[in-house]
């Protein structure tokens, strides 16, 4: 394993130093990333967080029109309640705070604990669980939160920026999650700095279908196939769970080690698939947004838009990872 790090146990802190140095619009304090501009009175504050290793998620989405604070944990390890408590108190502008939580046991537990201990702040929370590779049944921890997190953060962020009250922001955030589905495919495993070797071994002629964003193995292995077929597997899984229809917001997301050129190849196939179902890509993103360290592979996330969600998606955003309109 070769990584551009100083040491396995300093990587999160070192990266946050770099983040702070690169973006004067951000402040980093006690492993929490804030907008340098501080909370705005009357605006609902948005706090997200989760394990590190998914950059630009979440710290890269702190800024106007998205998050007020992000709590990065250690690599693939949810943040601790202290971080979340600090963030929640600091971003409260009097209108309450929304916790955006990806549905993983660790994330849920730590955010819950923090929320309980923040009884001086009005806290609501939204659980993101968009990954159709996981069966949503009594026999699992429920679906994982993956690419839809970005959609929830962007749209809830736009709504909060407009001055919507906490219950509305929370409701629309949950609606975005409801309308979103994801599926991921890995060509290689990621390697965590602490482990120093790939989390799983994948032969050169095999892919993992239905992977998460923490190097969890997928639901099954399949022979390596052309981009067209891999895209179809992902899209069939999404379509089978939430029929593709109308105007869609589509993210073709790289897992961290995949060249952008390949993501565009996948996007072309996803677009063709969606047209084939009579639906339409109205808005899209192609790139590394919700990554898994150096993993090679992609995920697709689809959200069924309506006019209001489209308007909120289009609203100005100014963060290191997503920016338009200002």
């Amino acid at each position, binding site marked *: 394993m070769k990584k551009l790090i100083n040491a396995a*146990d300093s990587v999160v802190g070192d990266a946050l130093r770099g983040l702070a140095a690169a973006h004067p619009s951000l402040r980093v304090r006690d492993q929490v990333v804030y907008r340098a501009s501080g909370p705005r009175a009357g605006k609902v504050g948005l706090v997200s967080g989760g394990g590190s290793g998914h950059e630009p998620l979440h710290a890269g989405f702190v800024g106007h029109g998205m998050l007020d604070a992000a709590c990065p944990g250690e690599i693939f390890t949810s943040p601790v309640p202290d971080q979340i408590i600090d963030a929640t108190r600091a971003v409260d502008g009097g209108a309450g705070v929304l916790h955006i939580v990806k549905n993983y046991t660790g994330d849920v537990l730590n955010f819950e604990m923090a929320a309980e201990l923040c009884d001086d702040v009005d806290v609501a929370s939204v659980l993101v669980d968009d990954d159709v590779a996981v069966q949503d049944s009594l026999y699992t921890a429920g679906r994982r939160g993956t690419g839809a997190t970005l959609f929830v953060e962007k749209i809830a962020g736009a709504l909060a920026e407009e001055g919507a009250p906490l219950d509305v922001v929370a409701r629309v955030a949950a609606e975005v999650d409801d309308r979103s589905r994801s599926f991921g495919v890995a060509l290689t495993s990621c390697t965590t700095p*602490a482990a120093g070797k790939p989390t799983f071994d994948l032969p050169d002629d095999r892919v993992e279908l239905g992977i998460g964003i923490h190097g969890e193995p997928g639901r*099954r292995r399949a022979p390596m196939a052309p981009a067209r077929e891999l895209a179809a597997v992902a899209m069939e899984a999404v379509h089978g769970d939430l029929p593709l229809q109308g105007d869609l917001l589509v993210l073709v997301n790289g897992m961290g080690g995949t060249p952008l050129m390949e993501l565009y190849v996948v996007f072309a196939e996803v677009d063709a698939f969606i047209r084939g179902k009579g639906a339409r890509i109205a808005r899209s993103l192609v790139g590394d947004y919700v990554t898994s360290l150096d993993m090679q592979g992609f995920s697709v996330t689809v959200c069924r838009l309506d006019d209001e969600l489209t308007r909120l998606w289009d609203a100005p955003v100014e963060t290191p990872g997503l920016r338009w309109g200002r």
Partner: protein
Amino acid sequence: MDTAFFVAWFEDAAKVVRLRRDELTRLDAAIGDADHGANLDRGFAEVRAALTDWPPASPVQALVSAGTTLIRRVGGASGPLYGSAFRQMGKTLEEPVTLARFAGAFEAGVVAVERLGKAAPGDKTMIDALAPASRALALAVREGLEPLEAFERAARAAEEGALATIPMRARKGRASYLGERSVGHEDPGAASSALIVASLATVAGGVS
């Protein structure tokens, strides 16, 4: 069982977790996200530091301090779960500590994990090591055994419980995403629980 016993327990657990760190990570790599060893190592190192910097005045303080430190420093699923277990043990434990009181507090800790994790035995989690250990302790109390023997039985039960997770299909935590593919692997949290329970016996036996 005095304060020193509890401090020694956490020190031994910290030592053993460091020693077996890579193995725990390997287990987590197979059905999770390859961080359980790093998480617990970081957490118990912090527990040890906290117990050194602010020496606890009682067993209760030692347990609550350890639990709070784990919650504050680990993150992930195991941080809140182990942290709540130790905090609940501390809050339940009556002093002076007898084996019976210890066993009662231990069971309260296990129940805290079950409640927080919304999990039950058979879900392929740390509970599958902790619950048998708790039952072994309760039985030992009823049989009037000495702490050393009681802890040795608990350690054996935890170890067997951990191994018994191998054929299970996970219903909770990250391993549940794998469905059938989670079968055939030992649960990392069950494995670490077995180590922590084994430390009880080590410390009671004086072989620290």
